[in-house]
Each structure stands twice: as structure tokens, then as C-alpha cells.
């Protein structure tokens, strides 16, 4: 790391700048380490309080419990990195799961075709969100608040408020488990982890991923460097929609039915996971690994409090406080950077 010929009067930092840089770097570190610290503290506490917490079976259960919210949070992370937000993800997932279930059970389509249709519906909703955000330049919050209601209504109209049972086995595959040692692991958990790995790869190792960060950080600079920002934004929302379709497949696997009321609060939980993971709601900074940790923090707290017999409403209380802490840390870091 040697820079040749560094003379005193070059663009080196002054003392004050260095101190400021150090402060914001420390805070940036905190937003990366925050979810790790939260996870370690929570896990340590529950290990101490309950002998059942730190067992393979329970850890596998935690991953299984977060697989739907975690998958939604993958799409949510992509959108929040572009300085957007998606309130519609849970409703779009519910619509996708109803389309899959109804196409397979009521219409009698081949289950794989039914799954493909459900994925297509979710991707289409993502594309509509992205189209409205890019072409009419509406705020993502308003667009997705609208499509949240549209998807919610369509789900209930199309399903006639009926839960659809007796799904074909191929459709609930991701709820099945395999065993390693004494521990049962669902295929759905693996699928979620694969999605995280894939997204990590795209965000960290490809130009498209770096462009997503640049787009969220300084859209005008990104456009002027030749990045096709409108197309990229549309792509991000569409891919996020497709990921919600995968979440639909996972929730069908987990519950074994097509439930029109599924995922009602999952949109907020997915945002919680992203924010806990240290991704900035202002876009351009954050990581997909953080989101996985954020989702696990939610999972560990819910699971642990259940194990030690604390009423479930306290899980919501603690998650709420953690979200505020995470957003406050991000806001402070931004203010320092001026």
C-alpha cells in the first residue's frame, strides 16, 4: 500500500478532518458491528436463561422461523439501498401464494406451472412499483402503500377469503426437512441462505451491485457516470418482486396451505430486519450480511423470550426499541459526515 512520492503539501488530511473522519468511521463500524453485538448479547442471555436455547434443534428452528421474513428482507434490502422502501412486500407475497395455491388446487394446473405463475405475478407487482417510482417519479413510500392495498384486496377477492388446503407435495417441498446428526433442517432455510449468498455476491462482486450503492448514494453522480439509473431502479424493484415470490413459496411450504391472511405484518418485520442490520434508510450504505444478522436478531429474541416464557408482546416491545436504536445510530453517523 505504498504511495510513491508523498510530499508534505499534497492533499493530505488536516488534523480536524482526520478526527472527523475517525469519528464517522467509528460510527460506520458501529452500524456494521451493531447487529453482531446484538446477536451475541441476545444469544448469550438466552443460553444462560434456558438450557434449550443453544441446541441444534432450536437454532435450526430459529432459522426456519425467520426464513420468510428473511427472504422478504433480501428484496427489501435491495430497494432500501436505492433509497427506496417497499411496504407492499408482505401483501405481494400473500397474493403470490394464493395464486400458486389456487392455480394448483382449484384450477388444477401442474404445480410447477402454478409456482411459475405466482412468481410472475410477484415480479409484475415489483415491476409496477419500479415503473411508478422511475417513470412518474413518485416516492416509493406512496407507491408501495398503494400497491400494498391493491395486492391485499386482490388477494382477498381472488381467494374469496378462503384458505386453500390439500396442496400438491411439490408445492410444499421447502417445508420438508432433512437431518444432519440430530438436527432437522428445512429446505426452505437453505433456500433463504442461498438467496442471501447470491445477493451478497451480486452486491459485492459485480458492477451492477456497486451501481445499486452509487444510485442510492448520489443518483445524479451515478447517472452522469453513465449508469442507466432508471433501468437499474426498475430492475431492482422487479427482482425484489421475484424474491417476494420465492418468499410466497416458502410460506406455503411452512404452513402447508394458501392463506390470504399470511404475512400481514411481514412488510414491517422485513424493514426492521434491514434497519437492524445497519442498512441506512437514506440509501447507498448497508450490507446484505447485516440484513441476515438483523433477521436473526429478531428470530433469536422471539424464540428466546418464548423459551423463557415471556409474553409475546414483550418481543414486539424489544424489537421496537432496537429499531429506534439502529436508526438513531445511522442518523448520528450521517450527521457527523455532514
Amino acid at each position, binding site marked *: 500500500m505504498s504511495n510513491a512520492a508523498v510530499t508534505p503539501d499534497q492533499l493530505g488530511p488536516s488534523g480536524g478532518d482526520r478526527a472527523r473522519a475517525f469519528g464517522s468511521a467509528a460510527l460506520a463500524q458501529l452500524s456494521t458491528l451493531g447487529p453482531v453485538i446484538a446477536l451475541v448479547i441476545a444469544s448469550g442471555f438466552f443460553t444462560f436463561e434456558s438450557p434449550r436455547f443453544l441446541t441444534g434443534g432450536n437454532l435450526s428452528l430459529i432459522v426456519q422461523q425467520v426464513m420468510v421474513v428473511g427472504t422478504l428482507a433480501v428484496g427489501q434490502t435491495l430497494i432500501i439501498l436505492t433509497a427506496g422502501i417497499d411496504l407492499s412486500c408482505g401483501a405481494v407475497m400473500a397474493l403470490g401464494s394464493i395464486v400458486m395455491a389456487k392455480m394448483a388446487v382449484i384450477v388444477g394446473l401442474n404445480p410447477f406451472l402454478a409456482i411459475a405463475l405466482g412468481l410472475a405475478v410477484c415480479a409484475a407487482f415489483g415491476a409496477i412499483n419500479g415503473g411508478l417510482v422511475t417513470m412518474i417519479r413518485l416516492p416509493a413510500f406512496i407507491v408501495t402503500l398503494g400497491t400494498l392495498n391493491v395486492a391485499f384486496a386482490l388477494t382477498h377477492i381472488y381467494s374469496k377469503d378462503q384458505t386453500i388446503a390439500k396442496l400438491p407435495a411439490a408445492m410444499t417441498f421447502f417445508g420438508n426437512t432433512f437431518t444432519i446428526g440430530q438436527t432437522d433442517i428445512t429446505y426452505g432455510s437453505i433456500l433463504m441462505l442461498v438467496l442471501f449468498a447470491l445477493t451478497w455476491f451480486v452486491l459485492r462482486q459485480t458492477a451492477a451491485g456497486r451501481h445499486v*450503492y452509487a444510485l442510492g448514494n448520489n443518483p445524479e453522480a451515478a447517472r452522469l457516470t453513465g449508469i442507466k439509473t432508471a433501468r437499474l431502479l426498475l430492475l431492482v424493484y422487479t427482482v425484489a418482486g421475484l424474491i417476494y415470490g420465492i418468499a410466497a413459496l416458502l410460506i406455503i411450504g411452512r404452513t402447508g396451505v394458501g392463506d390470504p391472511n399470511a404475512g400481514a405484518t411481514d412488510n414491517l418485520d422485513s424493514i426492521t430486519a434491514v434497519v437492524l442490520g445497519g442498512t441506512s434508510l437514506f440509501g447507498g450504505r448497508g450490507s446484505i450480511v447485516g440484513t441476515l444478522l438483523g433477521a436473526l436478531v429478531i428470530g433469536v429474541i422471539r424464540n428466546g423470550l418464548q423459551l423463557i416464557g415471556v409474553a409475546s408482546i414483550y418481543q414486539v416491545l424489544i424489537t421496537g426499541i432496537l429499531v429506534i436504536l439502529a436508526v438513531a445510530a445511522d442518523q448520528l453517523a450521517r450527521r457527523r459526515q455532514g
Partner: protein
Amino acid sequence: MSDNGKPTPALEARGLVKRYGHVTAMEGADFEILPGEIMAVIGDNGAGKSTLIKALSGAVIPDEGEMFLEGNRIKFSGPLDARRHGIETVYQDLSVAPALPIADNLFLGREIRMGGPLGSVFRILDKRRMLAESEEHMANLKIGIRSMKQAVETLSGGQRQGVAVARSAFARSLVILDEPTAALGVRESGMVLNLIREVRDRGLPVILISHNMPAVFEIADRIHIHRLGRRVAVVTPKSHTMPEVVAIMTGAMAA
């Protein structure tokens, strides 16, 4: 700059006109910059110099007039088109993504992928090479920043501007800098001016738009004075004094 057997200008504009309704922002504006020179563009507020610069960088399409890049007639369809022709513009509002590392900023929009199937099929970036080239590029420009992995926002204002200028130095034809020292203190301005000289000395012509008269007189080879929508004079820091230039700029003295 020899005037006998005059070299082909790096960029030339003749008789540019741009009207916005009843307002004429450019009225037959001419412009020229020769290879290897720093041409400062100055003018009072409302003289139309920003319209001229936008026309040269492709951000404004003139209604009339012609432009020539290295002697070839050219028409830009937009800023990206100008960029494709090798013209890099650094805008006043810092054209960098502050949260991204320096190396990422330098290569934003022109990333280098790995060789072989890793790059062509899996689209994996060659981060090591981009990092190495960033270090080399910055060292060549004598910008002493330790790590190319640090985010641009951890830098001082002058260093950030340094990154933006360094980025533009990848240009093939010429560099346009819009008020690069506007938000900077004296010391940092001096550093950025050194950097601009460094860019020029590497053979890239630089168009410098600035209100900072001492800076203009310090580094410009020639000064283009813009007034009432057209070029009224081209002078050099040696041929004219600062008060004379200001007088021409404001119309108090004939060119």
C-alpha cells in the same frame, strides 16, 4: 503555444446560439481550447458562461452553431454522449458517491471485470486490479491519500474534489471543471490547483470555469472572457492585469 502553423484545437465552437423563449443565453458564442492548455472561462453572473459550458459538455444542445472535437465536426446528444467522446466534466456539486470507497468512485461506470469466464460469465469484478490502478493513478497525480479503500466521505473537502478531478483525468480528450475550488479554503484550493496543473502536464487540455480570479491568474494559460452571451476576448495572464480583465468582463473597458 505557437501561433504560426496553429495546432488543431482540442475543442472548438463557432457561433453557438441558445434561446430560452425570449431570453437568448448564447448569441453567437465562439470557443476554442488548444491541446495541452488550461483555458479559464470567466464572465459575470448571467453572462451565459454556464450555458456555454453546458453546450461543450453536452448538457445543453445549441439551437445554432457548430462544434469541432480535434477538428472533426461533432454534435452531442447529451452529457453521456460527450463523455463517450472523451470529455469528462466535474460538476460543482461534487460528482462522487460519498459512501463508496475511492477506488469504486474512480472506476464507477467503467469497472474492470476479471479475465476469462469469471468475468464474462459470472461478471466478477477485478477488485485487486482496480485498487492497484487507483493507487497508481492517484500517485501519478501526486495525491497523497493512503488507502483507496476508504470512503470518499471520510476525506476533507479538498481531497474529495481531488478524487473528482482525478476521476476526470481518465478522459481521452479533455476535462471540464466547473468551479472546482468554490467550496474550499485557501490551502485546499492551492492543492486542487496543483492537481489541475498535473492533469494538464499529462497532456489533457483543461477548461476551468471559475470566479476565483487569483486562481485563474495563477494557473490559466489563456483566459476566455464571456459577456452578454458571447466571447468578447481571449487574453493571457501575462498580457492583461487582473483589474483589466475584470473591466473587460463587466464592460467597463473594451476588449
